[in-house]
């Protein structure tokens, strides 16, 4: 029955890292098990995985689950997982690299996946392959998009903006449009995991990103396409007000729109970028994890640098998880903002 808005506590969405295995080796990868920490790795059996998912759904009442990894299609039982979620009435989003999507897999998932999210990192084959860590990645993902669109599936392409691919951003966006993408996520490179060790190679400047966002805004207008900047673009470095069409997002950790992340072993984290484990849903209670001291600390964190900014409580200093991974604490400044703090102008 209709209950989601009336039950005392529900959480509408979470991310499930189906597997930690991946057939790509992206230099910008943020996966937390790739940090220099001792993060638990492994997978449960199909039955245990479904049981764990069931517990998470029971406790959260979630109606939206985003499957990610690693590369979800590396799991043989990915179809069973999707079927399980679909039978539970859950909307499923699929975040994958497209390399293992075939016409057959599309047919098997038909009607069960709400949106496919695939990386399209450059119109230049070599750059996309370089940023994917695998030769042939570009052809695979473009074919995947074409096949998905031929099957009338909804596809969003993700452009991870780095120094390497920014120059080709406009043409890459045109490629996405030509392929039939229903939207584009323009995500600035956010250090963490492997990416934390490649900051110098990948990190672009605020000026370069601003130029790219100007192009993005024009593309939105010209092609009537949605482009979102989902990784926080701190207002002290970027003037959001000049963009008519672009949409911007900030850290939602701890809010009703938080993307609590469930790893393959049942560990729950504040988001898929943070390595902080709040608890394990196979033994513990999700809401106790949400109410726990570490989560409260995560939610309360405000960098000292941001004091006095009128958007302090909205922007929250950028990505707290990136601050945690790269600078040692969620109370530190986002490494991107830290790198360009001398250019920052706090909105008054």
């Amino acid at each position: 029955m209709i209950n989601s808005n009336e039950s005392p506590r529900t959480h509408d969405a979470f991310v499930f890292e189906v597997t930690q295995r991946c057939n790509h080796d992206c230099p910008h990868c943020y996966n937390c098990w790739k940090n220099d920490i001792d993060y638990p790795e492994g997978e449960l059996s199909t039955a245990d995985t479904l049981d764990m998912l069931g517990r998470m759904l029971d406790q959260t009442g979630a109606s939206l689950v985003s499957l990610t990894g690693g590369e979800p299609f590396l799991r043989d039982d990915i179809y069973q997982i999707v079927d399980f979620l679909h039978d539970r009435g859950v909307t499923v989003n699929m975040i994958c690299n497209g390399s293992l999507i075939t016409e057959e897999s599309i047919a098997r998932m038909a009607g069960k996946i709400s949106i496919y999210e695939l990386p399209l990192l450059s119109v230049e084959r070599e750059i996309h392959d370089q940023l994917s860590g695998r030769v042939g990645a570009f052809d695979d993902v473009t074919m995947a998009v074409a096949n998905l669109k031929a099957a009338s599936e909804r596809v969003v392409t993700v452009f991870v903006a780095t120094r390497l691919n920014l120059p080709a951003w406009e043409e890459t966006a045109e490629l996405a449009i030509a392929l039939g993408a229903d939207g584009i996520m323009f995500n600035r490179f956010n250090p963490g995991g492997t990416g934390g060790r490649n900051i110098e190679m990948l990190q672009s400047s605020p000026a370069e990103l601003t130029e790219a966002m100007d192009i993005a805004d024009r593309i939105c207008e010209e092609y009537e396409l949605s482009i979102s900047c989902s990784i926080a673009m701190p207002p002290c470095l970027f003037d959001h007000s000049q963009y008519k069409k672009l949409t911007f997002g900030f850290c939602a950790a701890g809010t009703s729109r938080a993307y609590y992340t469930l790893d393959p072993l049942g560990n729950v984290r504040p988001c898929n970028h943070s390595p902080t484990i709040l608890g394990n849903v196979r033994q513990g209670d999700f809401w106790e994890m949400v109410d726990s001291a570490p989560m409260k600390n995560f939610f309360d964190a405000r960098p000292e640098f941001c004091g006095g900014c009128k958007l302090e409580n909205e922007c929250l200093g950028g990505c707290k998880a990136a601050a945690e991974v790269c600078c040692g604490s969620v109370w530190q400044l986002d490494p991107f903002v830290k790198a360009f703090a001398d250019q920052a102008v706090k909105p008054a």
Partner: protein
Amino acid sequence: MLHRILSFWTVFLGLAGLLVVALMVLFGADLVRAARTGPKWKRALVTAAVSLASVLGFPIPSVQAADPPPAESASVASVASVAVSSVAAVFDLKIELEKLAALKSQRDFNPKTAAESIRKTKACVAILSQPSHLSKLNDAGRTEAKRLIAESAPLIASVKALIPIGTTNLAQTPQWELILDTWRASGTLTTVKGSTGAQRVEMKKKFDLAKNAIGELALAGLISNAEAGLLVIDADVIWSRIIASPPTDYNKTCYEMVYIPPAKRSAQWLGKRLELVKKVAAADKVAPAAIDKVMGNINAHLAVLANDVELKKIRTPAERQAAIKLHDEIAPLIAKIDFKALGGRLGATAGWKTVQTAILAAGPLARTHRSTSAQRVAVTKQMKTAIASIATLTASGLLSAAESELILGELARLKKEIYRDPPTDSKVSCYDMMAPDPVGDATKRLEKRIPLLRKLFDSGKLNPLVAGNVLQSVSADITTIKNAKKAQALRKQAATLLQEIDRKFSRLEK
């Protein structure tokens, strides 16, 4: 009557004095001289006896009351003399008031007689108004004195009003004196101190009498009609100033306002009508016109009881629960009455209309999966109302349990579809999923996709297989374009490009 106003000692001494006076009269003594000369005790005794004799009806020359003794040095004799003087004043006042009443009833009398009686009345009132005299009377005496004092003023005024105005000097008339008294009295009530409720009542009476006096002076020609009108307006202005602020004893009066929460009022109102509503609901037929008149009010009160914010204002939990219970009892009955009044058509009932409204609003949002946050809030509210209506209609027997479940299931499905994707106007949270444009908007991109594909294909950046696949889906999308001419043009472009791809791919294959 005597025993009611006199103490034992007073009576005893009075009788003793009476004996003395009787003897004096017998021996031809000058009673007046006796009352005014000699020791104080003698003067008091004679005076008291003379007064007593006059009360009993013996004609004895009246003598002036002896000077009242100082209260502190009261001896038995002096107490007796003062008490008798007070008594005399009481009896004198009574007599004079009887005279005045007689004059009033006669209406045509000698003004001098009236004036003399008024003078004496005022003299007695002056004496008895002094606490030193009043305190010397017993309880019954004091009560009587106060009653007579209270009667004096109005009686005097009534007689004065009847005295023909036989003078051209306005200032000499009792009417003008009354008006001046009234204005003087009102002055004290218009200060910042304000006035009590009782003072206002008295003042209102004075103003009424003053207005009568104004009329009489105008009739007598001593003031013009215009002057009379001005005086009346002045009286009204002063009165409005007096009542401009609440009485100073406002909170002590019985008309203090009490806040009753609307929900409590509604519960009380509906509670009184519950039995009637039950009867109407049980009847075979209802009169639509009569029901129509009543329904608006009942529904308004029910809406108050259904409002959580209003219910919270009922502080007592038991009362609050009772209000909720009353609502739950009456709502289905009203639905039943509504149904009967509309000739038994479920579709015309207010409850069913809320269900229709919710489904009609939710449908398009569910189909397109596109809705703003505000739209979702609005439609969720409509669904909540619809669900409440379904419960009421089911409770009243207008919907079966199976029908109810069917409709509720549909509402649940619609809500799920609406909430499938994030709101179109929502701030995208970090790494959030987007709500891509539906096919309708993608149609515009179709026209631009083919040239883009050509450009990419020509530059060699796009795998021909991929391009071919894309063109196939483009061709499928072209079928959604309603404009036939545009569709045809696009089909031609797509076909041309596909042919080129095929040719190039075939050459590559070879």
